[in-house]
């Protein structure tokens, strides 16, 4: 019997001896749900590439994840010569992971690559093409000339303008950054294994700057598509950090003393879109009173607090409160079912049925809204679909009423929230020429006072006409072992070099 027990124990130890996470191993085991195509934000733009880019590469400017303020990173300072000319003084003594020294040539090469239309990078127009040219003024001084006045240029330079080593990239080809990325960031990529994960090691030569140096020597990022498997790995002590758990799952994990759950803000918002312009055919939503009735029928506070949770807040306007120029003193549309019924009766729509579309991940929100609308006498047919299908229908003008969420590319400015839905294009269901014009002006002038005034005008009109019903701010959750030391920030992508052990 003792021998049998010994055998079982020995077998158990043998099998379970790998991948021990935690402080003892000094390796952070980190889970990704999705594999990223590229680790750099030049080739692609996703949450995964954003996290990896900020670890492996550095941008010219840096957006502090705690305050949202932009400071210098690879550029130690910058000066606006005029509204289309920006001079940057580069940091000296910075070295890439392969030993190459960083200088103006790297900036001129990288900027030249990202603004070359032949390269057809994802979201190239909105992320890069406001820059016309990069010119070397000295070994550590460059001038960027812009194609247009771009009020959020500094945010953009802090987002996807990571710097590649010119010589290495020219010699190996730009695709080398998919498999053997080299940057100046706090972590260097030791191994990129497609489909499996990425191993990062701390870069000892990282400069003293606003971005923290690596606190944990090794980070092992594993692709674990199934969230239940991630939970099991956390509970078995083989994973240290996971993110984006369903709220109910996260709350259950909170009960485990070995784990902790943190909630953080995101710049993403969720709102209801109405087919005011009747693109999907004639419907009662043309009537302003019907749209206003729907706004009164929904208890946004209850949805934010009880359904979403984790610090989600009901929205007052069609933008995130943390965004520049997102007016927060607009009249509040109160939850008032009686008023909703009254408005519907006045509109002669006491027996209304609407088609209501949502991507699958917003099904529960759609169902909650359906419940509120049923209570005031509006019947809805919910049509859920995978995100790509829903998006095709939405952009194709087939949405009568949709619930959708929008991240705005992570730019903390109202210009990231409004234009796409009010520019007269595929996603615009309001088709209000004045609103389009105000937003266009606000997105192309550098005068911040004027911008604030124009955005306020647009947001007020959107609210007055109830073109949309802004619902709530999205939150992100992070589940980690109690040994992990991390403080959430205003961005929904964890900064790897900020993560340490307690």
């Amino acid at each position, binding site marked *: 019997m003792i021998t049998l027990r010994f055998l079982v124990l020995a*077998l*158990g130890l*043998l*099998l*379970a001896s*790998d*991948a021990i996470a935690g402080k003892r191993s000094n390796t952070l085991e980190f889970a990704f749900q*999705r*594999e990223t*195509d*590229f680790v750099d934000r030049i080739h*692609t*733009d*996703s949450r995964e590439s954003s996290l990896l880019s900020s670890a492996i590469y550095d941008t010219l400017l840096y957006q502090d994840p705690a305050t949202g303020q932009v400071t210098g990173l690879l550029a130690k300072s910058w000066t606006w010569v005029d509204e289309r000319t920006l001079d940057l003084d580069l940091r000296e003594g910075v070295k890439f992971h392969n030993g190459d020294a960083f200088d103006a040539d790297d900036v001129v090469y990288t900027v030249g690559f990202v603004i070359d239309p032949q390269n*057809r990078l*994802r*979201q*190239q*127009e*909105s992320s890069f093409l406001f820059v016309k040219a990069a010119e070397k003024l000295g070994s550590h001084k460059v001038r960027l000339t812009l194609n247009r006045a771009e009020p959020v240029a500094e945010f953009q330079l802090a987002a996807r303008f990571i710097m590649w080593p010119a010589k290495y990239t020219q010699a190996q080809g730009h*695709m080398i950054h*998919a498999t053997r990325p080299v940057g100046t960031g706090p972590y260097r990529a030791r191994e990129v*294994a*497609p*489909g*499996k994960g990425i191993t990062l090691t701390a870069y000892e030569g990282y400069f003293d700057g606003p971005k923290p140096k690596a606190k944990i020597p090794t980070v092992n990022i*594993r*692709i*674990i*598509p*199934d969230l*239940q*498997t991630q939970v*099991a*790995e956390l*509970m*078995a*002590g*083989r994973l240290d950090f996971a993110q984006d758990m369903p709220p109910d799952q996260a709350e259950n994990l909170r009960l485990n003393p070995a784990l902790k759950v943190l909630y953080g803000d995101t710049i993403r918002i969720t709102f209801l879109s109405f087919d005011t312009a009747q693109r999907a055919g004639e419907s009662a939503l043309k009537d302003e009173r019907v749209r206003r009735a729907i706004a009164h029928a929904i208890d946004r506070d209850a949805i934010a607090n009880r359904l979403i949770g984790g610090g989600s807040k009901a929205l007052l306007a069609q933008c995130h409160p943390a965004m520049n120029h997102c007016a927060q003193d607009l009249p509040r549309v109160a939850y008032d079912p009686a008023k909703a019924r009254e408005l519907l009766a006045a509109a002669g729509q006491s027996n209304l049925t609407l088609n209501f579309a949502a991507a699958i991940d917003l099904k529960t929100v759609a169902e909650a809204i359906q419940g509120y609308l049923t209570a005031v006498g509006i019947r809805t047919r919910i049509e859920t679909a*995978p*995100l*790509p*299908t829903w*998006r*095709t229908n939405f*952009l194709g003008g087939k949405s009568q009423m949709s619930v959708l969420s929008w*991240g*705005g*590319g992570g730019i903390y400015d109202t210009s*990231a929230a409004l234009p*796409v839905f009010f520019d007269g*294009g*595929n*996603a615009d269901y309001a088709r209000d020429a004045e609103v389009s014009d105000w937003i266009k002006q606000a997105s192309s002038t550098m005068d911040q006072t004027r911008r604030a005034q124009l955005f306020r005008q647009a947001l007020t009109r959107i609210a007055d006409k109830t073109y949309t019903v802004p619902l709530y701010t999205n939150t992100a959750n992070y589940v980690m072992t109690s040994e992990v030391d991390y403080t959430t920030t205003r961005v929904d992508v964890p900064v790897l070099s900020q993560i340490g052990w307690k």
Partner: protein
Amino acid sequence: MLRAVMSRLVVAVLVAVTVSVVGFSLLRLSGDLAAELAGEAATPAEIESMRVKHGLDRPLPLQFLDWTRALAKGDLGRSLFSNEPVAEMILQRLPVTLQLAVYALIVSIVLGIPLGMLAAMHPRSWIDRLSLVTAVLGQAVPSFWLALILIVVFGVMLRWTPISGSDTWAHFILPTATLAASALPGLMRLTRSGMLEALSTDYIRTARAKGLGERTLMAVHALPNALLPVLALAAVQLGTLLGGSVIVESVFALDGIGLLAYRSILRGDFPVVQSILIFVALVYTLLTLIADLANAFIDPRIRLG
């Protein structure tokens, strides 16, 4: 015989063509690939730019023909998202899927055949009933549910086995058990029915009357005859296991072609999905052909008939 082989090969090509046409149509109906490629925050102009870049603005039949022409030259194309050569992506991940399928098949055979034999030797006994219950459960329990139960018991509570990944042989224990659970019942029940049929034949009765020992009777006379259909099923099961490991690979985070297919389907990365579909369809058809040929080789009645 040659005619049979040729007709099988024609069927294999037809299956591959049908699968690729259906797969292509379903994928392209599931959403705007250009919008997916351009990313969530893309402007309509950027979506159009992606459409032109990848030739998605051209008529669907032309896109399909282009892909087929390249395939005929042995070029599986490149992933629309990562730009990696599809052949490389599949070859990189194939060993994991192959390893998993072979392990699962071995486990199914090693457990399924003896259990089937035992059930046949003791019909209507508790062993027979137990094997029936095992077969029903194995086929009825969804693989994702079984996978999670195994993870909770052996990975979390007992901590005997790794939960996710494919780094060591130990990482394959739970996925193999999960996948084998679905393949085992068929092999077990077929062995049982084959054995029961063989045991009721005249030659077994004669052998028994001649005083042959029960073990020799089973091993030398009954089993080889009972195993003929089992052999065919085992070959087909390997094809099923190769193509059916999507859920298991996803739950256990095994970087095989199942997981690659799952991820590519979600994003509409049609060069990858098409190549995997054709690969699995061809392997499946080929394995069926091998099973038929093996059966014909062993059993002259099939060959001559």
